[in-house]
């Protein structure tokens, strides 16, 4: 998942995950990276290619969002890094 949505409050993030999963979108709650948002503790990773669909879905369910980012955290290479050693 190469996209990330940040929120103003975790309440919105939890609701967003429920909405996306109910509509068969990949979604995963992660600690919000401070580089992207100073707000709540949790953010939601999703497939950036489906951005328009996802944003429309969240808007329809009145889930408020802070920002949408292309985001592939470097921590994703942790497993690969372990394999290299």
């Amino acid at each position: 998942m190469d996209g990330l949505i940040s929120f103003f409050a975790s309440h919105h993030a939890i609701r967003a995950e429920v909405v996306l999963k109910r509509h068969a979108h990949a979604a995963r709650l992660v600690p919000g990276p401070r580089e992207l948002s100073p707000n709540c503790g949790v953010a939601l990773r999703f497939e950036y290619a489906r951005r328009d669909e996802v944003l429309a879905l969240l808007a329809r369910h009145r889930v408020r969002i802070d920002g949408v980012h292309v985001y592939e955290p470097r921590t994703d290479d942790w497993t690969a890094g372990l394999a290299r050693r």
Partner: protein
Amino acid sequence: MIYFDNAATSWPKPPSVAAAVQEQLAQAGGNPGRSGHRLSIAAARLVEEAREALACLFQVEDPSRIAFAPNATHALNLALYALLRPGDRVVTTSMEHNAVMRPLRHLETRGVGVSCVRCETDGSIDLGAVEEALRPGARLLVTTHASNVTGTIMPIGALAALAPRYGARVVVDAAQTAGASPIEVEALGVDVLAFTGHKGLFGPTGTGGLYVRQGVDLQPLVRGGTGSDSAREIQPDFMPDALESGTINVTGIAGLGAGVQFLDDVGIEAVRAHECALAVRFIAGVGAVPGVVVHGPADPASRCGIVSFTVSGASPSEVGLLLDEQFGILARTGLHCAPAAHRTIGTFPDGTIRFSFGWFNTAGEVDTAVGAVREIAAWSARKRPDIQWTV
């Protein structure tokens, strides 16, 4: 899974806490202080037992000086809004949580003067600087007992002795120390002590309260039914009813009572010694790891079981994610609702990784965590520090 987030809320709770909650719902489900039938009395008895256990814990002679509140934040708001009026001055520290800072900044817009004493980079406070801030006269001194960021313990006895010389009352935020450190509140001379039930006292969330010294009358934030003085349409002026309007959280308080009983059984000194020993062990363990910086006081006697650290080249959120996903270690990262404290120790705006140890943590868990931090620091050192994420 290793739980190092006891400063957010303690986990696990003693089994007796869950049992007490269940028993209250099943056996003592009346409304305390209202109806007077057997279930109402059973509920009232649970609430008063918990109040007495807290009075005993804080060495308070009269349990009615303790009022329950939903959490420490409510208790602090109650105290600050009751004690401060436009034109008053309040002195506080730069290590405060937003539970103190936000009400004070709001009161500032209503004409209360706020003097914030800048602490040292290890979170400690200079008593001389506090005295300077008090000198022009102040209505109130409000301080945390221990920082939720660095674990730095404030000298509340000395502060409580200093404040009255300049006409100031003393409010202490004991969110991190109630249950983790002995507090003889009347001997210390503190006017108001705010505590939460769900951290060191092992109670459920939604429990907490405040001690109010005899002779200090606080106006409530909320007025309403108390079960007492029901013929009158004005709020009772006696403790604790003055500050406890609306049906109280009996279920939570039943659990809190069991939590305080558990604490009494194991002994608060034993808890303090255990949590400090874990903190010391962790600090010693990561002290030798290149790229890891531990914040807060060097002297173990000056801190509680909270340790904040940073890893060179990695953001706290990255470290937190790896700890959770790769090692099953649960910690809190970022600013911990205390931006002023992070500015003070030089970790604003990224924050830190915070481990907060509890009674149920073990030395083995700490050693596992030291190994995890070592691996993460090595991972970070292999990366280009200028690339945090790809866009």
